[in-house]
């Protein structure tokens, strides 16, 4: 049994690294991502600005005098500490406390969007001829700041891992089924779960290598810092890879139309791209959006990786997300193996 799994895994891995197009996609794409990071560092940021407001409904109403809600998203915070934490993590671009006299705001010096938010706030609050900061008090966040690139980096790694896992397993399985390769394997004593386990293990090796390469590349170029344990970070990416590969396997457990598989894989990957806080925070989003986000394995991967890299979180802090990814893995593997179809007949 183990021997069969190992040999199938070796075969699949050899196939992968000898296929230049697959190799290129999995290893060159992350390098393009690294280059893309260079642009992020240039401070070009866009999109709606998020301004945190300390206090309840009254504070928000007061803040709306200074902040145009059409162009800014206002995110209320019950406490100053909670708001400052979000500024530090670039999940909001600026924090305003309208209850103080004069009103006080906090920005992160390393946030390009924070800079823009500050300019808009100061312009809105000041009479044209008065000094810009005369009516507001500025403060910068205290403690260790998290540059945006460092905040976004775990998300990019997770996104790359998601695409590689879903297509590298899901799409390939459907192709194998279509061209009769699965039927040939079925003619041997190999059982469905053995074959699928071999595919999962092979892709895990590939994904972990690709992720390590991107990590090292970014570390060499931009000197990112991992504040937590590298071992724990590796384990988080391992669990994230497992859950994503299992999801791809479940999607491809039946059917032999590559077009249909492509559509299904897109149906899973695109919501994850936008709802898993890869590029931007969902702070201030509706509870429904947050619930949907929490159901996605990529959210848990990115959240855990960020907690380790940015805040130095330990095992106990990321345990719930690790548990969730383990559950997704087991459910997808069990259901995928149970409904797995070797051929269309």
């Amino acid at each position, binding site marked *: 049994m183990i021997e069969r799994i190992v040999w199938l895994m070796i075969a699949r891995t*050899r196939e992968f690294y000898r296929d230049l197009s697959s190799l290129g996609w999995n290893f060159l794409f992350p390098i393009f991502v690294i280059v893309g990071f260079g642009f992020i560092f240039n401070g070009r940021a866009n999109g709606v600005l998020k301004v945190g407001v300390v206090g309840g409904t009254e504070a928000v109403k007061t803040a709306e005098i200074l902040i145009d809600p059409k162009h800014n998203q206002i995110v209320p915070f019950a406490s100053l500490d909670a708001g400052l934490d979000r500024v530090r993590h670039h999940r909001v671009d600026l924090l305003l406390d309208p209850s103080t006299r004069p009103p006080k705001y906090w920005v992160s010096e390393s946030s390009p969007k924070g800079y823009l938010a500050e300019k808009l706030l100061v312009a809105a609050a000041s009479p044209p001829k008065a000094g810009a900061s005369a009516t507001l008090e500025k403060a910068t966040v205290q403690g260790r700041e998290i540059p945006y690139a460092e905040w976004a980096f775990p998300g990019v790694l997770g996104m790359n891992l998601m695409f590689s896992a879903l297509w590298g397993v899901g799409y390939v399985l459907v192709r194998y089924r279509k061209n009769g*390769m699965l*039927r*040939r394997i*079925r003619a*041997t004593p190999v059982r469905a779960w053995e074959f699928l386990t071999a595919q999962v293990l092979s892709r895990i090796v590939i994904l972990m290598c690709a992720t390590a390469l991107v990590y090292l590349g970014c570390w060499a170029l931009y000197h990112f810092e991992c504040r937590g344990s590298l071992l724990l970070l590796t384990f988080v990416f391992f669990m994230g890879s497992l859950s994503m590969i299992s999801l791809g396997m479940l999607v491809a457990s039946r059917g032999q139309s590559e077009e249909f598989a492509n559509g299904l894989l897109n149906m899973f990957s695109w919501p994850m791209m936008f709802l898993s806080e890869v590029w931007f925070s969902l702070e201030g989003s509706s509870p429904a959006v947050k619930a949907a986000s929490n159901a996605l394995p990529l959210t848990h991967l990115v959240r855990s990786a960020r907690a380790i890299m940015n805040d130095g979180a330990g095992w106990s802090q990321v345990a719930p997300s690790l548990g969730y990814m383990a559950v997704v893995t087991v459910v997808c593997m069990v259901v995928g193996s149970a409904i797995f179809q070797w051929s269309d007949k």
Partner: protein
Amino acid sequence: MRSPILEVRDLKKTYPAKRGSPEPVRAVDGVSFSVHAGECFGLLGPNGAGKSTTLEVAEGILAPTSGEVFFQGKVRDVTFRDRVGIQFQNTELPSSLTVKETLEVFSHLYSRRASIDELVRLCRLEDLLKRDNKRLSGGQRQRLLLALALVNDPELVFLDEPTTGLDPQARRHLWEIVQGIKGRGKTVILTTHYMEEAQLLCDRLVIMDRGRIIAEGTPGDLLSRHFSGVSLVLKTGKGAVGGLPWPVYETEEGLEIMADDVNACVRALMDRGVDLTGMSVRSRNLEDLFLQLTGKDLRA
């Protein structure tokens, strides 16, 4: 009498109705046969006759709608796939693996293994070991697939149309390999629509049409049971031979007369003033038998 290594009883396989057709497709309709250890057993018939479906049910790849399959007198169990070798009609192989790597991988999927060196010699793969599967010709690929069907030193080998699509030389190479497999005492079950292949390789065969067996026996028995004469092939039109007491078929070459008495037939043709220049006489074969039984060409 030898006990059968494989026995198929009243096998039926029905597929759901296709789009635009109200009727389900009955691919196999009550097929029964027994295969004895050490023999080469053939399923002969045209495309769509139900040969491959019958074979795939016997292999355990497809589930039957009804009927039973016994291996060595028992219902097939989990060890069945470890003890048989299967070659499908159309199968892709990992394109970036070499021939040697493919043999190694498949060999390790079974609990018992044949010597790879011996398989390489038997299937004439010596010069191809380092070649990627994607660079193999049709004949080379079939030889590799045949070797893969033998990697577990099986007691029973299933070959589904092993020579379809091959050129005559590659086909002959494969026939020699199958004869080599027979020579090692293996039991072979093969499907084919080439009557010469069946005649050359099979000890016993069944002829199938529309999901049913229409004839069964050794090639010699079948021919002697249904034919007593020969075929006369003439390069002339049908109008010239009207009123002959023997069946006459139009072929690409001209006319073919299935005569049980050559002398009487030749006399009758001469009486009618038919030009016998270019006439040839040949023995009846399985293709003629199929034509006689169904009125259809075997390769249709």
